[in-house]
C-alpha cells in the first residue's frame, strides 16, 4: 500500500530517466521530477523524522511550505542540510539523506521520545532544565540539540561561488501562476520594464498542476506559450528558480536565484546562487495561497497530504500518492482532486466534507461516497497511513485506506506585503488574513483571496494596468481567455477544532507542536499570540509557520472565545524562506572577504624579512628578525637599540595623508585644530590636536605648510578615513564659505622615517639640499631634490622616536627603490629596518601618545597638552565644551609613566593602578595602564597610564593589578617621558 508512478501523463520527460539515491538506496526518476515526487514514485513515503518526537513523516505539500520532507543534499563542501525535497529538482546523481534519525530512518531510537511525550510538552525545557544553572551549557543544551534537530551543516568550506546584483524595473511580478503571467503579459506587451520571478523551475505556478484548459489548450501548455512570449520580449526579464524573500524600504525586494542548484556539478565560473536586489517602481504579489491543513489526530502520518499537493503530484509528475484515497475537505477545492484521481484511475473511497450542505450542486459527478457534515477525527498507522476514523452525526466509522488528502481552506501568501511592519487584516468572509494594497505594491489573484483561474487571470491583468497607470505607462488588460474545467471554491467557514480526537493532532509539523501544547499555553496564561508562539515554539521552525500559524491563531481565538481578528498575527519578517549564507555573503569570502592594503614599501619590508601584522586593512611590518634571533622581543630590542645608537628606517606610509589647499586653508586648520595654525610659517611642521565638538581629543598628527595656501596633514593610521570625513563635513556643512579643498593623498606617497643619531649623515647622501641643523632645523618641512635631481620628494624633520629623525616622502612608485638605496648607503653605518613594534617601544620611552591614550575620554590637559589649546582663537571645534567644569577638574585621569619597583618584574597593558595597600577592587582603581613595553633604554618594563590626578603623583608607589590574570606588580608612578625630557636629541 503506497505511492506509485502512473503509466502516463504529467509534465515529466519519460525519455530522460535520472538515477539518484536516498539514504544510500539507488532510485530513479525522470527529468521534471522534484526530489519529493521522485521519492513518491519509488514508493518512498517515509521521508523524515520529526523534530522533537522523531515521528515518521512523509511529504505534506508540493512547495515552499514543506515542513516534513527536509533532507541533506550533496557531499563534502556542497552538503546542504534542510533542503525541501518539494523544491529540489531531481538531477542525475543526486544524493539525498534523511535527517534527525539514528541509526536509520526506518528504525529510529529517538522515537522513544514519543513515549515520553507526556513529559515533553510545551514549556518542558523551560520548566525542567532550570537547575543547576551550570548544567545548561555543558549538559542540557548539547544533549537537547543533538536529540532534537535538523540537518548538520558541512564542516568543509563551500567550493562554489555566489554573486550579488541589482536590477531595476517598472513592474516586478512575484509569482508566475495565472495571475502573475497575466500581469507580466499585460505589462510586457505595453512596453514596460518587467521582472517576473517564480520559485519553481518552470514558470506557470498552479497551471502546471491543472487539468483545466485555457483558451482551448491545457493550462500547462498555456503557461509555456505565455513564458515563450515573455522571454521573447526585450523589456521583460523572467527569473525562474528565484524566490523573492523580502520587501524592504523604497520598494526594494530581495530575491535569491538558484542558478545551479539543480545540477550535480556546477559549472566553474558561474555562481550557484545569485542574490538580487530588485528596485521596483511597482510590484504585484501574485504569490497565490497556501492550503491549510486540518488539525485531527495523526494528521502527520505518512500518507496524509494536502489536497492541492496531491493534485500537483498526480497531474504534474504523474504520481499517485496512494492506492486507496479519501479526501477530507471544508470547501469545494477538494472535489477538483476527486475528479482528477478518478480520471487517473486511483481508487477514491470517500469524500468527507465538513459542511452540512456539501459541495455546490453539480460540481462532482464521480463515484466516491460523499459524507457531508462529517469530520476525520483520527488517522491511524505508523510509518504509513492504514485507516481513518470519521465522526458523523454522533457516530464514528473507520475506513481502511492508505491516502488522505486534506483541504482546510486557503491562506493567501501575503508575507511580502507585511515585511515592512504592515499588519494583515482578518476577513470573516474569506476566513483568512488578507493584506491591503500598499504604496507601490498590490496583491492579486489567490494572494488577494480569489479562487478560480479565470478570476485570477482577469485580476492579474487588471491590477497590472492600474499599477502601470500610476507610473504613467498606458497598458490594456485585453480579454480573458476562456477557461474550461475551472474550479472555483468560494471561501467557507474555517474549521479549527475537531472534537473527540484521540491521537496527537499537529498544528506545527516542523516543530512538533500539537493541539494539547497550545491548550496548555492557554491554560498557563500564554494565550497572547506572541506568547503562545514562544511558549510552544509554534511557527518558529525553518518554515516560519507557513502551514501552522493561521490554525494556531484560529485555535487560540476559539479557546479565548474571540475572533481571529482579535488574536492577530505574529510579526512577518524576511526571509520568506531560508536563504543560504553563501548567497548573503556573495563573493565576500576567503581572500575576497575584505581588501588588503599594502604599503608602497611592502616589497622593501618583505625582502628585509619583515613579519607583518594586520592593522585594519593594512599589512604593517611589525619587526624584522635576523639570523639567530629566536623571539620577537630579541628583534625588537635590537631594533630599538640600533635606532637609539645608530639609525633605523621605518615604513610610515600608512599614516593618513591629506592635502589641504585654498586661500582659506590656514583659517580652516585654525578651526579644526585646537592649537593655532594660521601663524605657521611656510616650510614648517607643527603637531596638531583635533578635538571633537564635545571637547575630547579626536585625533593627532603633524601638519606642514608647504605654501601659503597649501598644507599637508598627517593623521593616525586608524583614523585616516574618519578625519577626512570630518574635515569634509567641516568644509561643506559648517563653513562652506571658506575657500578650501581636501584630497586624500595617502596612497600617493611612500613615507619613511629615518631616525637615530646617524639619520642626517645617511640622508644627506641622497638629499641634494643642505639638511644641516642650521639649514633645516627641527620641525622643518620642505620639498627636496634627491639623487642629484633625479627625483623630487618632501622632507619633514619630525620625530616620533625622540631621536634626531626625518620623514621622507617620495612618490609611491619610487618608494621601494629609495628605501633600498638608503639601506645600501646606511649599511656601513649600522642602519637597520625597524617595524611598528620597535616604533611603539620608542614612542612609549619618549612618552608620545597614540590612540591607546587618545581613547575618547581624554582632553588635551589630561595628556599634558593643556597649554597647546589656543586661548586666543574665538572658535575651533571643541572649544566651547572644553571649558566645562568636569573637563578642567584636577582629579581627572592624567597621563603618567609607570615602572615596576623590581626591574625584573613586568606588567601588562590594561592592568589597573591601585593605591599602595588598597584592596584589589574596581572601586579602588585609580586608572589603568594604557601602553606598556619592555624598554631596553630603562632596562625594565615601562608603561604609560591614565591615573586619577596622575600629574601630581609622580614618585608615588602603587600596585599594578591585573585582575584577569591575578597578577600584582608593585610599581611607581613617574614622568611619562623616559628619555631625553629636555628634547636635546631633537635639536642636534
Amino acid at each position, binding site marked *: 500500500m503506497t505511492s506509485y508512478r502512473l503509466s502516463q501523463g504529467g509534465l515529466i520527460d519519460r525519455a530522460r530517466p535520472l538515477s539518484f539515491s536516498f539514504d544510500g538506496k539507488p532510485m530513479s526518476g525522470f527529468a521534471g521530477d522534484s526530489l519529493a515526487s521522485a521519492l513518491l514514485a519509488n514508493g518512498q513515503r517515509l521521508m523524515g523524522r520529526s523534530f522533537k518526537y522523531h515521528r515518521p513523516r512523509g511529504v505534506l505539500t508540493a512547495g515552499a511550505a514543506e515542513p516534513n520532507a527536509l533532507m541533506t543534499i550533496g557531499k563534502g563542501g556542497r552538503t546542504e542540510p534542510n533542503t525541501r525535497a518539494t523544491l529540489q529538482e531531481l538531477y542525475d546523481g543526486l544524493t539525498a539523506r534523511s535527517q534527525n534519525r539514528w541509526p536509520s530512518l526506518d528504525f529510529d531510537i529517538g522515537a522513544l521520545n514519543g513515549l515520553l511525550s507526556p513529559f515533553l510538552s510545551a514549556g518542558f525545557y523551560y520548566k525542567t532544565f532550570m537547575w543547576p544553572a551550570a548544567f545548561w551549557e555543558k549538559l542540557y543544551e548539547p544533549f537537547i540539540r543533538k536529540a532534537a534537530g535538523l540537518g548538520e551543516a558541512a564542516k568543509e568550506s563551500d567550493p562554489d561561488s555566489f554573486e550579488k546584483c*541589482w536590477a531595476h524595473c517598472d513592474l516586478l511580478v512575484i509569482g508566475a501562476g495565472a495571475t502573475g503571467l497575466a500581469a507580466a503579459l499585460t505589462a510586457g506587451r505595453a512596453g514596460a520594464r518587467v521582472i517576473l520571478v517564480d520559485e519553481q523551475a518552470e514558470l506557470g505556478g498552479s497551471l502546471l498542476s491543472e487539468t483545466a484548459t485555457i483558451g482551448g489548450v491545457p493550462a500547462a501548455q498555456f503557461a509555456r506559450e505565455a513564458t515563450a512570449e515573455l522571454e521573447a520580449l526585450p523589456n521583460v526579464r523572467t527569473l525562474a528558480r528565484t524566490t523573492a524573500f523580502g520587501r*524592504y*524600504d*523604497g520598494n*526594494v525586494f530581495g530575491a535569491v536565484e538558484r542558478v545551479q542548484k539543480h545540477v550535480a556539478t556546477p559549472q566553474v565560473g558561474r555562481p550557484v546562487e545569485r542574490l538580487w*536586489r530588485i*528596485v521596483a517602481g511597482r510590484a504585484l504579489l501574485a504569490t497565490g495561497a497556501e492550503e491549510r491543513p486540518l488539525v485531527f489526530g495523526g494528521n502527520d502520518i505518512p500518507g496524509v497530504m494536502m489536497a492541492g499537493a496531491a493534485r500537483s503530484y498526480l497531474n504534474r509528475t504523474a504520481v499517485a500518492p496512494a492506492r486507496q484515497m479519501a479526501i477530507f475537505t471544508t470547501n469545494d477545492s477538494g472535489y477538483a482532486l476527486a475528479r482528477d484521481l478518478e480520471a487517473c484511475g486511483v481508487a477514491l473511497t470517500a469524500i468527507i466534507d465538513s459542511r452540512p450542505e456539501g459541495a455546490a450542486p453539480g460540481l462532482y459527478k464521480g463515484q466516491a461516497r460523499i459524507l457531508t457534515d462529517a469530520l476525520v477525527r483520527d488517522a491511524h498507522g505508523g510509518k504509513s497511513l492504514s485507516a481513518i476514523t470519521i465522526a458523523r452525526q454522533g457516530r464514528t466509522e473507520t475506513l481502511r485506506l492508505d491516502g488522505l488528502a486534506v483541504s482546510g481552506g486557503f491562506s493567501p501568501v501575503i508575507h511580502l506585503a507585511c515585511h*515592512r511592519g504592515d499588519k494583515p487584516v482578518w476577513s470573516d468572509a474569506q476566513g483568512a488574513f488578507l493584506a491591503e494594497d500598499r504604496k507601490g505594491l498590490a496583491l492579486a489573484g489567490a494572494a488577494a483571496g480569489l479562487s478560480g483561474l479565470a478570476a485570477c487571470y482577469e485580476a492579474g491583468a487588471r491590477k497590472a494596468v492600474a499599477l502601470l497607470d500610476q507610473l504613467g505607462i498606458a497598458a490594456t488588460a485585453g480579454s480573458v481567455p476562456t477557461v474550461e474545467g475551472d474550479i472555483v471554491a468560494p471561501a467557507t467557514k474555517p474549521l479549527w477544532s475537531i472534537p473527540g480526537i484521540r491521537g496527537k493532532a499537529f498544528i506545527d509539523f516542523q516543530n512538533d507542536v500539537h493541539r494539547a501544547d497550545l491548550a496548555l499555553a492557554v491554560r498557563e496564561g500564554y494565550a497572547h499570540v506572541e506568547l503562545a508562539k514562544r511558549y510552544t515554539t509554534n511557527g518558529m521552525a525553518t518554515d516560519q509557520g507557513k502551514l501552522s500559524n493561521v490554525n494556531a491563531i484560529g485555535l487560540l481565538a476559539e479557546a479565548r472565545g474571540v475572533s481571529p481578528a482579535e488574536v492577530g498575527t505574529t510579526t512577518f519578517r524576511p526571509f520568506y524562506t531560508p536563504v543560504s549564507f553563501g548567497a548573503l555573503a556573495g563573493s565576500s569570502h576567503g581572500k575576497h572577504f575584505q581588501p588588503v592594503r599594502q604599503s608602497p614599501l611592502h616589497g622593501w619590508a618583505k625582502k628585509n624579512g619583515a613579519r607583518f601584522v594586520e592593522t585594519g586593512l593594512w599589512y604593517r611590518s611589525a619587526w624584522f628578525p635576523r639570523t639567530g634571533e629566536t623571539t620577537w622581543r630579541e628583534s625588537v630590542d635590537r631594533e630599538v637599540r640600533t635606532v637609539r645608537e645608530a639609525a633605523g628606517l621605518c615604513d610610515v606610509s600608512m599614516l593618513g595623508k591629506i592635502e589641504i589647499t585654498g586661500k582659506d586653508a590656514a583659517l580652516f586648520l585654525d578651526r579644526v585644530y585646537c592649537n593655532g595654525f594660521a601663524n605657521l610659517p611656510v616650510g614648517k611642521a607643527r603637531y596638531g590636536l583635533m578635538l571633537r*565638538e*564635545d571637547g575630547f581629543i579626536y585625533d593627532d598628527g603633524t601638519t606642514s605648510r608647504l605654501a601659503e595656501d597649501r598644507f599637508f596633514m598627517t593623521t593616525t593610521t586608524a583614523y585616516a578615513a574618519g578625519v577626512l*570625513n570630518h574635515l*569634509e*563635513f567641516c568644509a*561643506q*556643512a*559648517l563653513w*562652506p*564659505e571658506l575657500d578650501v579643498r581636501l584630497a586624500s593623498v595617502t596612497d600617493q606617497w611612500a613615507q619613511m622615517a629615518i631616525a637615530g643619531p646617524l639619520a642626517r649623515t645617511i640622508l644627506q647622501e641622497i638629499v641634494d639640499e643642505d639638511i644641516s641643523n642650521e639649514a633645516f632645523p627641527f620641525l622643518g618641512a620642505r620639498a627636496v631634490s634627491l639623487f642629484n635631481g633625479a627625483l623630487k620628494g618632501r622632507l619633514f624633520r619630525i620625530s616620533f622616536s625622540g631621536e634626531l629623525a626625518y620623514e621622507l616622502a617620495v612618490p609611491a612608485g619610487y618608494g621601494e627603490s629609495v628605501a633600498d638605496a638608503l639601506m645600501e648607503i646606511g649599511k656601513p653605518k649600522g642602519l637597520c629596518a625597524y617595524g611598528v613594534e620597535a616604533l611603539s617601544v620608542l614612542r612609549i620611552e619618549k612618552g608620545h601618545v597614540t590612540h591607546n591614550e587618545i581613547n575618547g575620554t581624554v582632553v588635551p590637559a589630561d595628556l599634558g597638552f593643556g597649554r597647546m589649546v589656543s586661548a586666543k582663537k*574665538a*572658535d575651533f571645534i571643541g*572649544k*566651547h*565644551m572644553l*571649558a*566645562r567644569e568636569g573637563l578642567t577638574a584636577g582629579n581627572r585621569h592624567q597621563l603618567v609613566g609607570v615602572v615596576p619597583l623590581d626591574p625584573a618584574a613586568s606588567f601588562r597593558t590594561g592592568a589597573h593602578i591601585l593605591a599602595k595597600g588598597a584592596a584589589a577592587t574596581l572601586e579602588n582603581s585609580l586608572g589603568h595602564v594604557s601602553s606598556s613595553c619592555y624598554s631596553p633604554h630603562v632596562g625594565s618594563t615601562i608603561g604609560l597610564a591614565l591615573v586619577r590626578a596622575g600629574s601630581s603623583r609622580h614618585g608615588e608607589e602603587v600596585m599594578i593589578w591585573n585582575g584577569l590574570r591575578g597578577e600584582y606588580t608593585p610599581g611607581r608612578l613617574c614622568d611619562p617621558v623616559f628619555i631625553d625630557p629636555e628634547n636635546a636629541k631633537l635639536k642636534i
Partner: protein
Amino acid sequence: MASLIACPHCGRRPKEEFTVKGAALARPEPQAGADAWFDHVYLRDNPRGPYQEFWHHTSGCRRWLVVTRDTATHEVEEARDAALWNRETAR
C-alpha cells in the same frame, strides 16, 4: 532606513554607500553660551515623522547631504547638498 538615497549629485544610490552622522543642526555661534552649546552637542529630538540628518556620500561623490527622512515610514522626502542647506537654512 531607506534602501536608496537620491543623492543630488549622483542620483539614486544604495544606502550602503552613505554614512549617517545624525541630526542636521546648525552650529551655534561661538558666543552662544554654555546652554546653547550643551543642547547642540547632547540634546536631540526623537520625532515621529520627518527628520533632517547629515548623510555623507562616503563611497560616492563624498559630499555631505542633508537628508529629510520620515522616521515612521522611512520615506526620504529630500536630499540636498549640505553647503546649500547651510547657506539657505542654517543661518
